[in-house]
């Protein structure tokens, strides 16, 4: 759309806009080759990112709230995630379950997720159902009904989810233990799903407070990707959200994590047939230029079967059956975590010795250009694979917008990767792979299930 057409469209829309429905165009952002995201903001603070995609007659509609488990406090952990569940229950004028029934009748596939820095709701639906979906999403942003029976039932569901993801899942339980041990003050120390005792204790009052505080248009960003015109989209969104007032958002009160003083180590027994090792180093925030460098280092170390640790631990020494490594993609500095599962009869200490050798090698000598090239190609493939559907594009845009306020950041990262030099990775390895700032979790099999 030309600037002239857009100005004319906005003038027309704003002339008859509802109370908070006036909209302004903020910027146009390049998103890969030949595509542009348009950023709009409505008078109530609601932001809209729109990426036209006419490759299929479908739309993806995501609502990203800038609230996650980082906004909780001790004793009330898991509230953001529980609330995500409650958002599917009842809104004014619709009975419990009515929201999902209407979505399904529209052919919509809907879901939601909560993590450390955000909560997001997503729908993918056939073209032609935009007004229905936007109307339903606007209603639950503003007129959710919270009642005791639904809260009780949903708490049970979430506790069952916790049993599935943590209590009865070795990797989930160990991961939770690592973050709890590694952090002292930052809210990243508790799991997004929350501690079981906290989930049990939530009241409707807790939930209502949370809703009134964080579920407001000025704390949200809509991401719409798909087969719709800009004019129709803006008219629909203004109509659906234009009467919802903004709220006063609290100032975030988070203490940065102090520097870790010395290695931390815990051992646990689990009903698993083999030993496991989880290591967490202090890592950079997603917005830190070093994040890209550490991501590439982890690719070199554990990315696929050609990676250094896979070659040594799985192929050459037959010590491990599975391994992975990543750096947390979060707003604040978090962890670089490395997970290795031992083969039968081998100890976690044997794994640690080899992992340490390879980490020391990263610190001692630069990574070769060929390995950087492979890591970069894997990262590019991963990014492109996530952009094949409207839903995938909306997820990518929403995530980077919510965490970094830069929806096209994945392409910025891709461009930056092409200029990475061995010396850059070397510096990052020296800076972050410091054993005095790491946490280790060693998992031993309980005797009755040892292989």
């Amino acid at each position, binding site marked *: 759309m030309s600037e002239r057409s857009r100005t004319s469209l906005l003038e027309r829309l704003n002339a008859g806009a509802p109370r908070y429905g006036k909209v302004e165009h903020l910027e146009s952002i390049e998103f890969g080759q030949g595509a542009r995201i348009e950023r709009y903001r409505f008078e109530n603070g609601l932001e809209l990112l729109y990426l036209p995609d006419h490759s299929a007659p479908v739309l993806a509609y995501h609502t990203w709230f800038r609230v996650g488990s980082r906004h909780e406090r001790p004793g009330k952990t898991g509230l953001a995630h529980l609330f995500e569940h409650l958002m599917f229950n009842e809104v004014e004028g619709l009975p419990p379950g009515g929201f999902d029934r209407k979505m399904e009748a529209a052919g919509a596939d809907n879901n939601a997720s909560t993590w450390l820095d955000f909560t997001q709701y997503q729908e993918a639906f056939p073209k032609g159902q935009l007004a229905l979906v936007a109307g339903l999403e606007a209603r639950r942003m503003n007129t959710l009904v919270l009642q005791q029976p639904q809260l009780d039932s949903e708490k049970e569901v979430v506790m*069952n989810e916790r049993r599935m993801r943590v209590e009865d899942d070795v990797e989930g339980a160990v991961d939770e233990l690592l973050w709890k041990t590694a952090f002292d003050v930052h809210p990243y120390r508790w799991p997004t799903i929350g501690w079981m005792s906290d989930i049990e204790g939530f009241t409707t009052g807790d939930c209502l407070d949370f809703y009134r505080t964080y579920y407001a248009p000025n704390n949200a960003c809509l991401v719409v990707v798909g087969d719709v015109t800009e004019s129709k989209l803006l008219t629909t969104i203004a109509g659906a959200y234009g009467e919802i007032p903004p709220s006063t958002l609290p100032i975030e009160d988070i203490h940065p994590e102090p520097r870790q003083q010395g290695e931390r180590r815990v051992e646990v027994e689990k009903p698993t047939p083999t030993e496991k090792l989880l290591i967490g180093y202090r890592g950079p925030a997603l917005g830190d230029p070093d994040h890209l460098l550490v991501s590439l280092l982890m690719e070199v170390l554990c990315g696929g079967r050609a990676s250094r640790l896979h070659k040594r631990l799985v192929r050459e020494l037959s010590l491990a059956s599975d391994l992975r490594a990543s750096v947390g993609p979060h707003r604040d500095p978090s962890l670089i975590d490395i997970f290795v599962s031992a083969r039968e009869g081998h100890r976690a200490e044997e794994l640690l010795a080899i992992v340490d050798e390879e980490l020391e090698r990263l610190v001692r000598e630069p990574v070769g250009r*060929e390995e950087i090239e492979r890591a970069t*190609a894997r990262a590019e493939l991963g990014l492109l694979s996530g952009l*094949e559907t409207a839903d995938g594009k909306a997820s990518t845009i929403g995530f980077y917008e919510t965490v970094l306020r830069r929806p096209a950041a994945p392409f910025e990262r891709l461009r930056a990767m092409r200029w990475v030099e061995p010396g850059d990775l070397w510096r990052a390895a020296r800076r972050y792979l410091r054993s005095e700032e790491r946490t280790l979790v060693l998992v031993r099999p309980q005797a009755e299930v040892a292989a």
Partner: protein
Amino acid sequence: MSTPNEEAGTVTRPITEAGSASQPIVEADRAVPLVHVSIASKVGSLLDPIGKEGAARMLMRLMRRSGAGRSAEQADELVDRIGGHLGAEVTRSTAGFHGGVIARSQAAFLDFTFESLCQPRFAPGEFEQLRQESLAECTERLDDDRARARHFWLRKLFSGHPYGRPSGGTPESLRRVELSDLEELRERLFTRQHMRFAFAGAVDEPMAREAAARFHEALPVGREVAVDPADPVTPNGRTLVFVDKPERTQTQIVIGCLGTHAHDEDHTALHVGNTVFGGTFTSRLMQEVRAKRGWSYGTSSAVPFDRRRQAFSMWAFPQASDAAPCLELELQLLERWVKDGITARELAAAKKYLTRSHAFAVDTAQKRAALRLDESIYALPPGYQGSYLERVAAVTLEQVNEAIRRRITPEHLVITVLGTHAEIGARIEAAIPRLASAETVRFDAD
């Protein structure tokens, strides 16, 4: 080397079916610079020698890591460098390579795929390495409660039938596989008669067609092997398999019987009926088990297809203390579904959902190519995928309820519960009316 119910013969007729080398499936779309490639055989793990289950899967993985005389490390490095991924996928009815690559590297990727399929090296050292990795993965899978429950459930449901043989193998069967088995298996799986080709995305169409022809030329003519087992037999009465694992706070419950196949006249009607019962978030199972009682984070039912009757299954994972009442409720819901069927209102809602959401089955070139490939691999009725919307629209309430009654057998079920037997075993048995037999197996049994 043979499997039951197998017929083979020299084929003289030309191969001109969709998906064959002369008519490869090509779904071009340049929106994202990625190319997807699928090269698959119409025959799968049912050709595994008896007692050597997992052989086809080992074969595919060995081929993937040894093309053109490369070492496994060289193969992995090459694929990573060009920005590709190539995986081996084996089911009962198909075995093939499926992968993708950044468009600029498609020529190199097609070469790599060609070399993996047509020029593998069967080195004893790499074979033994692969066996050890496969065995370690079997141990790793012991941590996956859902997969363990499903493994024992399938084994019982298809007991004595080829569908009961696990495509991934067991530690015991993997130890029995020999390199010569893989060499022989390759000759039977990957012939001109069996191979199907699909390319999607930002593909260079002439290059794709040329690649299919090149594969065709390099493959042996071979014999067409029609693995055609008899229909599985319905279980007799209600059977419980309790999978015992220590310290489970949560259980895995799988309930089911035989289901349908794509040539079954009840197939579409049963698919629609299942949508109402356990196919969506607002289904009966989800409403009763999750929304009203909060007993399980999720619960669902499914009616997948294969060449012969596949399974109908229900799944839930309640906490241990809710397992018995949850199982009891699921059985009651199943009985009611079969006895009373679905309502006209439910049918209308299901049709609306299935019709509108179908847009997401065909919204990318890769998905469209995969559907067409399935049609060819599974010998589905002509136009099967393309006629989905018409078939769903044509289904009547009577057809749905008849199909449910004809195909689902609530008095003849296999029920698997994974949990800690000492804590809930007795309550689980008591929760199953008319239970005919029960057995307990350790979660780590082969």
